[in-house]
């Protein structure tokens, strides 16, 4: 065992046993971030904090929620909303945060794509981020089942039906997933378990992993400049803070993040108190009824783009396109063949590719909610084909790109 001197303070006592000074240095005061950044670099912290809000509000909701088809709806809409002190506040925070977290995830992802932050050495940052995106999606879907309203039931019906694999007609698999022929008690309780236990656990693990992937390649910067972090850190520690290209996470980077967080919270709580309808669909305030299909069934807005890739095609082709769309983004670091790490506006054709990608995602999202009829169906088909072609297009565009 190590030899321990008598400590002069609690701090020293802890440091002897836990090396808190070293931890603080490595994780915070000497964790170096490039100086040349903008507010989009704060989205990581905004996401972490929003996840924290979801976790805390979720714990409060979990105290009163009842995972049973007979009582689930009333436990949410009556017990939590009426009888529990501030239950409505926790529910609105949870509902709005679940929607807003995806907005921030998309901004965070598109920032990464724009600045080439998944390239050369940073592939694992992107892949771990994509794993988080997929797990968050599963978390959102399973959570949407819990109030057991009309949209919970019918979205659950539609999405689990996808597993029948079109012409494969694998209904056995669908029944195995549901634990029943139709969504029922077994379905609700297993999605409850996934939502409150397994998936949050995986998300927390993946967040730690995502942070870990940043250590060696370091955070990218606005110009994609390759910084010698050791040298820049040395300059900073020598007091040449103005010359150094890096800043410590704490307090310099953090002070900017906290300011962005302040602005974000103003908007977030405005939504929580005065504009929550977008995150809490009215249809889901009708109790689940297996004999009454709603006229329009649609997922929450953040799934609409992939839903629209499924819809305009025939059954089997639609499923294949949908499958491709789910995994395509994982491969981005390998499809992008360009040697440059630079913002899109410096990368010629890639800039056009990027904006076409954004606009196509938004068009798919909007069409995903519209009734699949007439012109909307035709536009959806075009937008879905454009999405699928963007993959090969990226290979061509980036192969042609000249080294900057």
């Amino acid at each position, binding site marked *: 065992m190590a030899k321990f001197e008598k400590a002069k303070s609690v701090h020293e006592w802890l440091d002897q046993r836990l090396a808190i000074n070293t931890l603080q240095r490595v994780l915070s005061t000497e964790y170096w971030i490039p100086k040349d950044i903008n*507010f989009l670099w704060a989205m990581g912290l905004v996401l972490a904090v929003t996840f924290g809000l979801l976790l805390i509000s979720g714990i409060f909701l979990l105290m009163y929620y009842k995972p049973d088809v007979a009582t689930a709806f009333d436990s949410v809409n009556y017990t939590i909303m009426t009888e529990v002190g501030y239950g409505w506040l926790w529910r609105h925070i949870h509902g709005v945060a679940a929607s807003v977290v995806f907005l921030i995830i998309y901004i965070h992802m598109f920032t990464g794509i724009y600045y080439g932050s998944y390239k050369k050495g940073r592939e694992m940052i992107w892949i771990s981020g994509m794993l988080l995106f997929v797990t968050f999606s599963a978390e959102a879907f399973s959570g949407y089942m819990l109030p057991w309203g009309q949209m919970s039931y019918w979205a659950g019906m539609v999405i689990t039906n996808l597993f029948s694999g079109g012409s494969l007609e694998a209904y056995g698999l669908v029944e195995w997933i549901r634990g029943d022929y139709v969504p029922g008690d077994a379905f609700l309780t297993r999605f409850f378990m996934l939502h409150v236990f397994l998936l949050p656990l995986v998300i927390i693990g993946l967040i730690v992993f995502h942070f870990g992937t940043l250590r060696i390649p370091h955070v990218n910067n606005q110009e994609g400049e390759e910084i010698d972090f050791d040298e820049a850190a040395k300059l900073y520690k020598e007091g040449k803070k103005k010359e150094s290209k890096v800043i410590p996470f704490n307090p310099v980077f953090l*002070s900017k993040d*906290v300011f962005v967080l*302040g602005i974000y*919270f103003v908007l977030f709580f405005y939504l929580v*108190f005065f504009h929550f309808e977008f995150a809490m669909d009215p249809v889901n*305030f009708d109790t689940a009824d297996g004999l009454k299909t709603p006229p*329009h069934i649609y997922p929450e807005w953040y799934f609409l783009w992939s839903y629209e890739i499924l819809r305009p095609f025939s059954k089997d082709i639609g499923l294949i396109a949908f499958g491709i769309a789910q995994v395509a983004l994982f491969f981005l670091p390998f499809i992008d063949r360009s040697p440059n790490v630079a913002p899109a506006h410096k990368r010629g054709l890639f800039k056009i590719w990027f904006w076409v990608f954004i606009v196509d995602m938004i068009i798919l*999202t*909007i069409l995903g909610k519209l009734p699949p009829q007439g012109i909307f169906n035709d536009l959806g088909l075009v937008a879905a084909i454009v999405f699928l072609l963007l993959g090969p297009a990226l290979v061509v565009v980036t192969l042609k790109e000249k080294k900057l």
Partner: protein
Amino acid sequence: MREFKILGIVVFFTLVTYWGVEPFAHSQMHKHVEGHEFVYDGTADIEETVDAKKEMKKAYWADVAKIATLKGDATSGEAVYAMCMGCHMEGAVNMGGVTPPSLEHTGALYDKNYLIALIKDPAVAMNTDHKFADTMMHPMGSIKTMVTEPQQIADVVAYLLTKKAGEVTPKEAYAEACGRCHEMRYAKWTQLGKTPFFKEKKDELAHQIKVLDEQAAVKGYMGKLPPDLSMIIRARSEHFLETFVENPQSQLAGTSMPRVGLSKEGYEKVTAYLTMIGDPSKPAREAIGPWVILFFVVFAVLAYLWKKETWREVH
């Protein structure tokens, strides 16, 4: 300045997406139904009727308009009203499917034109005449033979509007206008009214059986048990509720839900109750919301000052 440009782009694309998936999508998903400000003159009824009944409805609503111009005498109306009390009384029982409503607050809840129309021909006024074509009479159909003279109708309506128009609470408004068909479990309300507290289990069960019998009668009459309205205020948009109550056929063609003929004031009372039960946190949200937002405005200002201070030495 670059940061503002980036922020502008992010905000722009976010708002376009929001517009597309919320206001625009909803405008495409739901058919547009014009509201009529709770004026009952039969415009929509005549428009939606395509068969031979169109002419009948035109004449009917023209008659209603004519009766509305007559000066009613409340004193003579009271005598006519005696006929109504045979069914519309305290402790009324289910007749032909539903329990006749109390008329205690009629003048405060319902529209004058609608009341005239209702006495002239209940099924046509309620816009559910498709249900009673030839085979079956409206439970209140006998009124057509009991009160026949236009002046009689004007008198009894004048009586209702002046003598049965006392102050009405939101709860009473719900009970009289909706509560005989629609359960509201979050308010412990059934078709038989507020469920009392029972000391003995067997009394409670006996009451439940009465409720089930009443529900069976309502179901038999309506075709299905009308939905529980506990959460309806959050499950439907304001515009839907308003146009649906005004004329159920406009949103749900063929429904057996009758038009109840609420006036604007009456409708506001009913929605006040629906909000109290279905969205009780509304006052708390409005009271606390601004303070929480103010807190974060102050937070952001302080954070900005900290940021400026911290970044001064690195720039």
